[in-house]
């Protein structure tokens, strides 16, 4: 058996302790050990953004990060956006605008949108496009994703 490392982290507001192999990716840790399967493995090379999570306020490709790097950090996954009152406004806007087809890229898109709007509350069209350039969607042609982001930004930033 390979050696494991004990790490402590905060995930979606809850303290978690896990024992991980040093080579385990952050993505596989949240998916397999915490059963948070919202973040998706689509390339494993940091090229598509489907695995995007937020670590200490910064969006990251979790497939490129080791689980041990999350020791002592605050992690938000797609499962952490929803509150008991309902969906996060970004999630709701994606639903309402038809920005979701197969939905495999959606968790990553929404997490990256969260990051974008934290940095630029009311982005221009160009800023949205640049903000999402690391996220690939094969179904929607992005247009409805842009619509959803414009809509949520205009409602939450004013």
């Amino acid at each position: 058996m390979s050696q494991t490392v004990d790490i402590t982290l905060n995930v979606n507001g809850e303290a978690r302790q896990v024992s991980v192999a040093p080579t385990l990716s952050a993505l596989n840790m949240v998916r397999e050990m915490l059963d948070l399967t919202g973040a998706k493995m689509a390339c494993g090379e940091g090229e598509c953004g489907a695995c995007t999570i937020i670590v200490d306020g910064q969006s990251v490709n979790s497939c490129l990060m080791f689980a041990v790097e999350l020791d002592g950090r605050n992690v938000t996954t797609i499962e952490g956006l929803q509150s008991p009152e309902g969906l996060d406004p970004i999630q709701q806007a994606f639903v309402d605008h038809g920005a979701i087809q197969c939905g495999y890229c959606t968790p990553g898109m929404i997490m990256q949108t969260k990051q974008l709007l934290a940095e630029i509350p009311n982005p221009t069209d160009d800023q949205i496009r640049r903000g999402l350039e690391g996220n690939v969607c094969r179904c929607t042609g992005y247009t409805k994703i842009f619509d959803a982001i414009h809509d949520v930004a205009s409602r939450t930033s004013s």
Partner: protein
Amino acid sequence: MVDSIQKETLIGKAITKPDAPDKAVGRTRYINDMVLPRMLHAKIKRTDRPHAKILRIDTSKAEALAGVQAIVTADDTPMLGIGVNKDNPPLKKDKVCSIRDEIAAVAAESEEIALKAVALIEVEYEDLPGLFDPVEALKEGALQIHDDKPGNVGLSYETKHGDIVAAEAESDFVLDEHYKVHYVTHVCMGPSCVIADFDTDGKLTMHTQTQYPYNYKMDLAPALEVHPGDVRVMQPPVGGAFGSKLDVYPFEPIAVYLAKKTRRPVKLTFSREEEFIASPTRQPAQFHIRAGVKKDGTLTFRDIDAVLNNGGYTSWGATTPYVMMRTFTGHYRVPNVEFKSVAAYTNNPYAGSFRGYGNVQATYVTATVMDKLAEAVGMDPIAFRLHNAQEAGEVTPQGSKLGECALGECIEVAAEKTNFLARYNENAAEQDTPGRYKNGIGIATSFHNAGGAKIHKSDGCGTVVMLDDYARATVISGASEIGQGIDAVLTQVVAEELGIPVKDVTIVNNDSAIGPWDVGVHASRTTFIAGNSAKRAARKARDRILEVASKQANVEADDLDLRGGHIVQANNGVPVVKLDKMLRGLHFAGEDAELIITTDYYEPPSEHEGDNHVGDMSAAYAHGAYIAEVIVDTYTGNVNLHKLTAVQDVGRVVNKLGIEGQMEGGIAFGIGYGLSEEMIIEEGIVKNPSFRDYKMVTPPEMPEIELHFIENVDAEGPFGAKGISELPTIIPAPAIANAVYNAIGIRFNNPPITPEKVVRALMEKAGTMVAAE
């Protein structure tokens, strides 16, 4: 009780997808997320040789690795072929014919162990000369790839109409051109994945991404020597399909062999690199076209020879001429057409079905040829197209009855919305003036089957509608949800018929043990065929409800309607009884008790093709006219597509959000085909198997999209709708090519139009090529 309920239609409204909220919060369990108790993980040992004899396979080191539960090679299998020509044994025994070829597979306690084990499998080969060019493969004396395929012919097609010799004699101008269209691939965001699981009685459950669950059983079972009736197909949510899951591919029976050997569930998932190397592609092709025209702009004939690179084995790609020939015979009025195609076996990857199915390739040719012919006879691109556009009621030489043909209307609206002619002329005048950036505008049109495609003897779909005691409807449909949004459409159609809210409809369509038969999600057929079936099943439920209510209320059934969860008087909307109350009453009515459960099997009134490929193969056809606006950077060769206007004949919009989403997503595929996407394959080796090197459209490159829907209600479609989701994939690339010509006066017969090709062509045009080289 409410006083009065007015009739409100849901058709044409924006309905959100019922599966969207779970997808937005990360709750959806895709097949890739599934874990079954005691499940093993499998990996495939693939060859890295495009063509070689297998001399020896040694799995002993892999078998010795802790955690490995089973290894299979061809010796463990019946060696029966899968695919369209049944030429593809899931595990290869004597030789490999392409680099994706499967040699062995491992099932282990973890994916990591399975990967390690695969690396320990030793294979000894004797390399054979490779055959990569389909034209070479068809030459006499070429080496033969499959023993039972003389001349390397995979599949060939031919159709002849009219007299092309006489038509050529009448022509004032004959264009003679060669085209070569390339390899692209689906790039589903969810990598290929399957879970095979046997129960104790030996019955097999397949958790799959398939988009054709019923014929899937028929295609899969022979490779396993299992009765197709003993296969249950479960369809968990999938991360995209786009045609890639319309056949059985070797990884699926391989997972079954491993599950059989271990008596444990076996999950097999592709890596992204594997997805690029070992998934189907779009069919690449070479076309030689001769096309004639008279001085007045009337098309006279088309003569097409197509050579398809079949690759090592045969999936649906080799059958795409079936659709190509409909385009060559039916895209504009052209009475004399000869089309011949041959798919030649080579040692390349092989193509499957892919959204647009042969029409992406064919329309790239026809839509750019139309531009060239217009110029040859000195007509503007709009007038030339309108002159040759079919009108309502016309029938193509292959027998496609165009019905309410909207081609001319699409062209006129597209030209008007973009002020096309003025800008086209302005750009053309600017072509040779100094300046780095050149504007271009281009139009392309196409037509495609929009009411299914009777490629099998049936093009049907079944539906069951059940109403419960609370007036909630469960709809069991044969149609698969692969992300495209059929669940929303079916919800809407049934809610419309039954006068209940969309939220009160549940769609069940993920289990072949309860679902009624359907051909599959392909050919833009699902809204049309499954929509009609659902509408008819719901209509039967509605009729029965009104019949019962008519007796109870002593009112004629025709004078009643279903609205807002009530049975109401049709003329004034005054409620007679609440629907749920009536249903409960019916359910608990003692000896007269009844449940409202209705079924329908809808077979569209289309024809299976006969000899010479003649027959009205679809119950409807749709046209579209798209206009691309580009700025070509003559220094870098970059083509900036900044706007695409799509005028699409849709019959009638059912779900506004859904159809817009299909349009925009399809357009992104079309743009990729025209400008950036290409699988680079050298001597059978895929050189760019990653997102980094395979250039899909990403957010910054997506142009502004302007959509216009032409709604001429189709007589047969559900609520007048046509199926259109392939056309947006088909039309953008030739529209872009025509726009690039308008900008710089250069034609590209070999998409994608990459910066490198543009710069090279500009240098050739300017005569500076030699200096630059």
